[in-house]
């Protein structure tokens, strides 16, 4: 929603149905909570609008 509003391209993985994506998420974030967002190799757990804005220079 936020990303769409700002015209940011992204790829969405459903970790409930996609086992490979789930394993990748757990490996990268070291935890099992969702959502996990990765921007240029940096990871944030949870929906943190402040972090997104800063990361994306919005």
């Amino acid at each position: 929603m936020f990303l769409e509003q700002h015209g940011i391209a992204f790829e969405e993985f459903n970790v409930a149905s996609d086992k490979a994506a789930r394993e990748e998420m757990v490996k990268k974030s070291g935890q099992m909570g969702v959502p996990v967002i990765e921007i240029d190799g940096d990871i944030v757990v949870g929906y943190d609008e402040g972090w997104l804005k800063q990361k994306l220079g919005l």
Partner: protein
Amino acid sequence: MYDMIIIGGGPAGMTAAVYAARKKLNTLLLSKDLGGQPLNTMGVENYMGYQFIEGPELMQKFEAQVKQFPIKVKTGDGAVSITRLDGGFEVRTEKGQAYQGKTAIIATGKRPRLLNVPGEEQFRGRGVTYCAICDGPIFTGMKVAVIGGGNSALEAADDMVKIGEYVYLVSLTPLTGDQVLIDKVKKAANVTIFTEHETMEILGNKFVSGIKVKELKSGEVKTLEVGGVFIEIGLIPNSEVAKGLVNLNKLGEIEVNCSCETGIPGLYAAGDVTNVPEKQIVVAAGEGAKAALRAHHYLQRLA
């Protein structure tokens, strides 16, 4: 000084904000997030106007409605204290900010109750979760434990028997939820129910690998191998912010009258943090509206 500071951005707080804006009150909405508990609710089928809507989507609609008004919204920072000032209140936040308002509405909602056992904090987000609805699918195909004996625990167990490999339902008391739900869970082939069992410890290395439970009668301790632990033992009100200032009932809820008044002129509370009898989105929204209108009334008399 603001006319009104609303603390909390769930259904009660956001509805209060809309009502305040329509009365042209200079309003600040202060909250950790916008949406509150419905963000963790998959399907809502009893908020009027929608036959079915997902909790987060409903809250996005609330947010859009708030943001069409000139309301100052500050998120990512929760209130830690409210004190009385001359002519109003001062609200201090986690990040050390201070805001002043002629009136304040506390709409801080509830949060999951903790089990308070070793391993709980360490493995939070690493197998320990308080929201089966949001995190359940991550545990697809795994053995999990659900802790609790009420409706939330039974609903979590019912969800997990469908997508998990095996479910242990561990309750300190006999099951207290609705009989319909109890029957449904008992019917599943891949569930074991341990009632009158205390959860002693959550075990693991990097992630959860099991739990230790003790049967109350015999004192027998068992280790159950699970990759996920769903803690569903109820909710506690986020009323700490008002402690010492207003009356709390024995559940820790802020006591209000039917106009959302706390007993301190200019200070109101609304929604799940209060002693209002039903905790529902539609009720919380209605309470938020009542609190804002009452505060407006109070401000009119001040002027």
